[in-house]
């Protein structure tokens, strides 16, 4: 009966029958003699427990599972700081040409000139849109790019014999990856506050920098959804103290084509190609976290990088070209297929499309903010322009109606909208961080605002309807405490 339930799909092992399988996909059975040279003591004694299901059962099962997901292709997904914009189908189609999929990472450069040309041009375009002097593509996610960036900062100081610099300054509103990265790089984290308007407190910053300062990690526009207006002053203070500036590219979509991190004074940046350059999020990866640097950090870039020789041949740069490199962060060259998708996206947008991204992302965010304010919601930073995202705070609703930001988020699911980012940044109570992106139409934005207004009305008249949401999803709210206490992390046959 349960298999008929559109909201419930059995675990695939429960479809399994010994002897069944997608047999047409298997190589022919070989006699035991084919593997007789593998010694018995190194072999498996019984087969691994994998499902035994037909091809059609497999296709149905995973297709049904897909129906239980929200996605950009099916739903508006205004998840702040995640830039859930349309992933053009062409990017997938043309990154999956058979020659590109079949290319071995250790294949010779003679059989990779087409691929390498794409990577080289991607490096050049990323330099141009960020204002940086060098780019390496291999980090495999934003956090991985952060790691490369902070490792380069450390390597730079060390190369100058400046060994005391091990402190990374992070604003308190920063993504959790920033402090976690600093720790992974063997640094100490120092958090500094922001003021009431969302800018960094310059006096605190001046007091925080010193001979131990390795650098500062900033997102601009910040995680508060506002542009750090005194960024040039921040850069002067940090540079004067001997530190470097790290740009977290999480919010690059806001300023694409409008202002460049290199021009703001940043020494090193990472870009989330899965955000700004629209490669798919894939249910949580793969991402791509390319890094860019100013001239003085170029010798430390992670390898490999694609170079262009005088004979117009593309080749991999290696340790011989960059002896001071921080090294290699992936077995080969990172998420090449993701990089191809970003390349295709950037070539389609072209220079004129780049600035439209920043413009329309900002237009959509400011429009939504205006409409939500008119509908009675409280902006966290009412005096400021929104960047490509903005924060509303529901602390009034929580206090007066006992309905929280999480309740609003869950009720939005019932309206067919993915929830905004909830409870981040941590310093704004009961917050929703909303990022519509440039690829959404006014109609969708209006529908979302109307849903918020309806939920507000419901919260006033029938609050339990909101606090017990969602009601129409495959499951109701889940017992997270039980999940963490009675660990069930893999399927086991019931006896």
């Amino acid at each position: 009966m349960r298999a008929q339930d559109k909201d419930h799909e059995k675990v695939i092992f429960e479809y399994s029958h010994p002897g069944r399988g997608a047999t047409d996909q298997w190589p022919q059975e070989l006699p035991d003699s084919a593997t007789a040279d593998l010694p018995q003591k190194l072999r498996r004694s019984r087969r691994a427990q994998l499902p035994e299901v037909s091809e059609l059962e497999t296709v149905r099962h995973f297709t049904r599972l897909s129906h239980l997901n929200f996605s950009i292709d099916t739903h508006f997904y205004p998840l702040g700081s995640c830039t859930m914009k349309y992933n053009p189908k062409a990017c997938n189609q043309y990154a999956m040409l058979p020659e590109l999929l079949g290319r071995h990472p250790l294949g010779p450069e003679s059989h990779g000139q087409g691929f390498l040309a794409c990577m080289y041009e991607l490096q050049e375009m990323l330099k141009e849109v960020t204002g940086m002097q060098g780019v390496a593509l291999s980090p495999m996610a934003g956090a991985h790019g952060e790691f490369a960036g902070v490792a380069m900062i450390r390597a730079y100081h060390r190369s100058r014999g400046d060994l005391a610099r091990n402190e990374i300054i992070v604003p308190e509103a920063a993504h959790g990856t920033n402090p976690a990265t600093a720790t992974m790089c063997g640094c100490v984290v120092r958090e500094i506050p922001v003021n009431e308007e969302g800018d960094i407190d310059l006096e605190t910053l001046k007091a925080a920098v010193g001979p131990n300062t390795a650098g500062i990690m900033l997102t601009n526009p910040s995680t508060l959804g506002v542009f750090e207006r005194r960024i040039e002053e921040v850069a002067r203070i940090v540079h004067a103290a001997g530190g470097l500036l790290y740009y977290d590219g999480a919010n690059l979509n806001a300023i694409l084509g409008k202002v460049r991190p290199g021009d703001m004074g940043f020494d090193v940046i990472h870009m989330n190609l899965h955000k700004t350059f629209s490669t798919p999020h894939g249910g949580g990866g793969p991402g791509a976290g390319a890094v860019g640097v100013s001239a003085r950090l170029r010798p430390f870039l992670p390898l490999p990088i694609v170079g262009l020789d005088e004979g117009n041949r593309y080749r991999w740069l290696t340790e011989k070209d960059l002896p001071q490199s921080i090294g290699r962060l992936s077995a080969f060259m990172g998420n090449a297929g993701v990089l191809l998708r970003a390349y295709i996206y950037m070539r389609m947008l072209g220079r004129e499309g780049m600035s439209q991204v920043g413009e329309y992302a900002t237009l959509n965010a400011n429009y939504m903010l205006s409409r939500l304010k008119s509908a009675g919601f409280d902006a966290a930073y009412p005096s400021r322009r929104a960047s490509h995202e903005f924060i509303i705070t529901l602390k009034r609703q929580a206090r007066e109606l006992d309905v929280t930001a999480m309740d609003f988020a869950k009720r939005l699911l019932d309206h067919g909208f993915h929830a905004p980012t909830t409870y981040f940044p941590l310093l704004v109570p009961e917050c929703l961080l909303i990022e519509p992106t440039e690829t959404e139409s006014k109609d969708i934005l209006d529908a979302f605002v109307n849903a918020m207004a309806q939920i507000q009305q419901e919260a006033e008249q029938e609050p339990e309807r909101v606090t017990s949401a969602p009601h129409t999803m495959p499951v109701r709210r889940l017992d997270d405490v039980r999940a963490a206490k009675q660990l069930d992390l893999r399927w086991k046959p019931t006896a």
Partner: protein
Amino acid sequence: MAFIPHTPADVEAMLATIGVSSIEQLFDEIPASLRVKSLDGVPVGLNEMQIGRLMSERARADGRPLCFIGAGAYEHHIPSAVWAITTRGEFYSAYTPYQAEASQGTLQLIYEYQSMIANLTGMDVSNASLYDGASAVAEASLMAVRANRKSKSLRVLIPRTVSPMYRRVAIATAGNQGLRFEDVAYSPDSGLTPVEVLKKYEGEDITALVIQQPNFFGQLEDVDALTDWAHAHGIFVIAVVNPTSLALLKPPGEWGTTGKGADIVVGDGQPLGVPLSSGGPYFGFMTTRTEYVRQMPGRIVGRTVDLNGREGFTLTLQAREQHIRRAKATSNICTNQGLLVTAATIYMSLMGPVGLERTAAASHARANDLLMALTSVKGVRRAFTGPFFHEAVVLFDRPVAPILTSLANRGILGGLDLSEAFPELGYALLVCATETKTLSDINSYVTALGEALQSAVRAA
């Protein structure tokens, strides 16, 4: 072509609502001196027809050579269903499943993946994946430091038979936190790490021993002896394995004679339905014992119940992670390689235990055919004695690089030249075959090799 749906009327209405006269005005908080003047370094945009043509030309330039390179990335048959489903928008364009109620598809899939990988490696629990096999070795080493309470040294033994590509990533990543990776020599006859060379570490504080099976040369290590030695000295065993091989070989959970098995198992999941694609995206897998699960990095999915008591799936044990613990997290990782895990889970379902075993056996049998054919050529012999799996080292009587160039000109990628990473081996080549190669492919290789050697003789 920026995929923007706004009509001029929309823009006008939106600006009026905001109360500004132009989009430009929305950027008035950014200092004018910082504004971009031009982006001339970016070419003008292409439409889909134009980009399609450009990419097809680029792809054609790379061609489709016959590939006998392995070394950590393997060409296996991938059923059409794998990527037909994986690229469905519902999987492809979804985010990390933070909103569990709207992400049950992705969450259940990861739970199924965790179950399959735990079963394949013979371990208790799996995470939702890491970036790739190399970064998984780095993360496993950091995890061993946290989990091995008997050791304070931060010293990790990494035999030279472990992939040099994995070693350098481990050093570049975990070296920043003070971990020291120490080489262990291999036997020139067998290409294996003998327990005898480890004896000199007895009595010293060592955190972990990395054991790769099959090792980088394709040779099969005596994993039982190595595991027993490590455990006898309070050293964690980090197993690095090829998932295809596990259909035939002993799972790391059963390594050793004491029943304890490896402590942490990692590897690259690429052979499970992920195309070669110039090196990525792939995914790293990691499994461990239940007692160490709280030291494991990365996402983990658990099964639980909802308000109505109905079963459902959610991210769990998040107190380990960066968005909660910030500077004290087990890792800074915040994604997994979700889409690749999707492909691998579908692949493992289609293959099942029997199909995966046949894939491993067919790959190995083909590698035996390849070795026999290559070593029948004058001046070519095997580098090592003893058992191997689907990949092996052969030695030439002259430098390998010109031979490989000559083969490539004939449309054949003959293997990986080891002369730079392992100069002591002489003119060594690492070759690999999988079930995708036919006897006729092997004949083409041997014929081209004969020609390449001939032309080299003529040139001399």
